[in-house]
């Protein structure tokens, strides 16, 4: 736009609209630059998570790595402590026991699926990025579930804790495993045992902490027993209280897992422990003969045989561990309905809870002890023990378990230790067969066996117990509050088998089926041979310790 001045000189007068447009363009440019700067800042911050930024400097102690792994596994191990608030959720949502049980089942299912799907991504991106993602998912899962509980929307709990939290579980579970194997090529069993022990320990930590938090945020109510008196062994908390606990756990777990994120480091290419000579490994099995990619691993029969081994070991163990509390009560119930576990009938549930704690200790201890022992015995021998001795233990429980509390407790404790040992020894078994190249991804794919067992184990034992309970007649009990007789049936309206109806003989078929399940795994383990060399990667693989071998 032009205009004339008094001097008749043509001068350019700025168009106000153009000025506005120019200002807008400037603002847009500034915003764009800010966005770019923000993106770059974010990328720079996130690049901290990259594998190349987590390579250990010279002199870095490998003993800093297990605590990082433990920090993640201790948090995600909370998944085994869901029973603490299960009854509260059943009451708060007015849902069946099965509906609430699906939250746990969904989380375990997602664990297997996500570890299988994201295994290669974890191996390629390194443990720090994987741990960070796991922390975000696990924490977000709690926060979403917290909102779901507060607002009475069960689907949000499925989505949050089950799906998103389950993805965090899967990624978190496998994220430090391959790194630990690479830091401890001389003791892969010890290394994975330390981390996976944390998964077992996570429930030991979470159970008392959640109990304390529930008591801190709210007050428990107790449901009435059939005789009308309050059942003091069952604590029910309202939705607001449980929601606050989930919120707290989500925040605390995120912070704790960040310690693992900031501490974990991968060994530099070519690194090996001082004095380590792969040719002088403790056992022949522990000597890696070749490196196999995850895609090639699933073309080998060894992968499927080991999948069956893990499936059978977990199916048998999970079936007994999930029912530990009612099982000990049912095994030691006298003909008149009284318990031979304790002279005080009020203490039966407390003694049973003690038994659950006892086998949890063996589950956790087995993860460390058996996996460490596998460095000396060899993985195959370890699984021969888990499955072979496990068969004997299940047979004794089935036939003589009810005759002696000592025999029963000892056998179940040994089974629990084999269950834990099976989890922690399998990464080292994979490392022996396939090398360290993509062991995390292969481990992730193998964990689908865990998800399958998570469905199969309870399905077998609960199906048989439900069938046994349904065949029993209802009982008439005097309600001391209303002074009326009430009828109590073996299966209540939530589908739960009511305590007091089953006995040891009702478990016999399930226990003998587990002997058969373990026998299948035993044979599968015996069939495992070293992987055919045609599946080995040609030439050195570009990965940490491997490239030096």
């Amino acid at each position, binding site marked *: 736009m032009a205009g004339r001045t008094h001097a008749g000189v043509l001068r350019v007068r700025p168009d106000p609209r153009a000025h506005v447009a120019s200002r807008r363009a400037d603002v847009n440019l500034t915003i764009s630059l800010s966005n770019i700067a923000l993106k770059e800042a974010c990328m720079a911050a996130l690049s901290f998570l990259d594998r190349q930024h987590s390579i250990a400097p*010279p*002199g*870095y*102690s*490998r*003993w*800093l790595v297990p*605590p*990082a792994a*433990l*920090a993640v596994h*201790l948090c995600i191990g909370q998944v085994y402590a869901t029973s603490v608030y299960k009854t509260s959720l059943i009451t708060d949502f007015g849902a069946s026991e099965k509906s609430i049980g699906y939250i746990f089942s969904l989380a375990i299912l997602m664990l297997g699926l996500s570890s299988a799907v994201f295994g290669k991504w974890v191996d390629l991106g390194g443990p720090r990025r994987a741990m960070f993602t796991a922390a975000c998912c696990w924490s977000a899962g709690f926060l979403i579930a917290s909102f779901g509980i507060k607002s009475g929307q069960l689907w949000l709990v499925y989505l949050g804790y089950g799906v998103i939290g389950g993805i965090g579980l899967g990624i978190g579970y496998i994220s430090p495993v391959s790194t630990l194997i690479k830091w401890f090529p001389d003791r892969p069993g010890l290394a994975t045992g330390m981390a996976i022990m*944390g998964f077992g*320990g996570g429930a*030991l*930590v*979470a*159970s*008392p*902490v959640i109990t304390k938090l529930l008591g801190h945020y709210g007050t428990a109510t107790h449901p009435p027993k059939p005789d009308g008196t309050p059942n003091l062994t069952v604590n029910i908390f309202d939705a607001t209280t449980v929601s606050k606990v989930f919120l707290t756990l989500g925040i605390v777990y995120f912070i704790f897992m960040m*310690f693992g994120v900031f*501490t974990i480091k991968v060994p*530099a290419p*070519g*690194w*090996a*422990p*001082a*004095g*380590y000579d792969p040719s002088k490994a403790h056992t022949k099995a522990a000597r890696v003969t070749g490196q196999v990619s995850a895609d090639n691993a699933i073309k080998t029969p060894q992968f499927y045989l080991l999948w069956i081994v893990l499936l059978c070991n977990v199916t048998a163990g999970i079936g007994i561990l999930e029912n530990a509390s009612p099982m000990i009560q049912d095994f030691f119930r006298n003909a008149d309905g009284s318990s031979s*576990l*304790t*002279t*005080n009938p*009020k*203490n*039966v549930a*407390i*003694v049973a*809870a*003690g*038994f*659950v*704690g*006892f086998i*949890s*200790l063996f589950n956790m201890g087995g993860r460390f002890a058996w996996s460490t022992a596998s460095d000396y015995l060899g993985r195959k021998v370890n699984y021969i023990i888990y499955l072979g001795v496990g068969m004997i233990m299940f047979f004794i429980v089935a036939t003589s378990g009810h005759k002696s509390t000592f025999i029963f*407790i000892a056998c179940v404790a040994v089974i629990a230790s084999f269950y834990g040992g099976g989890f922690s020894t399998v990464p080292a078994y994979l490392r022996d067969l396939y090398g360290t190249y993509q062991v995390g991804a292969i481990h992730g794919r193998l964990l689908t066996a865990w998800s399958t067992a998570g469905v199969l184990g309870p399905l077998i034992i609960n199906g048989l117990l439900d069938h046994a309970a349904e065949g029993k007649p209802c009982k008439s009990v005097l309600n001391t509050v209303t002074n009326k007789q009430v009828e109590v049936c073996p299966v209540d309206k939530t589908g739960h088998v009511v305590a007091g109806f089953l006995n040891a003989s009702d478990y016999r078929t399930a226990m003998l089926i587990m002997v058969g399940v373990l026998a299948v795994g035993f044979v599968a383990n015996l069939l495992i041979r070293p992987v055919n060399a045609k599946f080995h990667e040609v030439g050195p693989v570009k990965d940490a310790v491997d490239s*030096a*071998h």
Partner: protein
Amino acid sequence: MSSEHPHVDVNHVPRIVLSWALVTIPLGYGLFQTLKAVSKLFTGG
């Protein structure tokens, strides 16, 4: 094949102790609480 530094860097020792303490303290608490519950199994509640 390169080797790990023959001796752990002295500066790492406090960090190792702190790191292990951070994970073993909660684990120890969980173990203690579990052992308290387990004792009921052997004392009859």
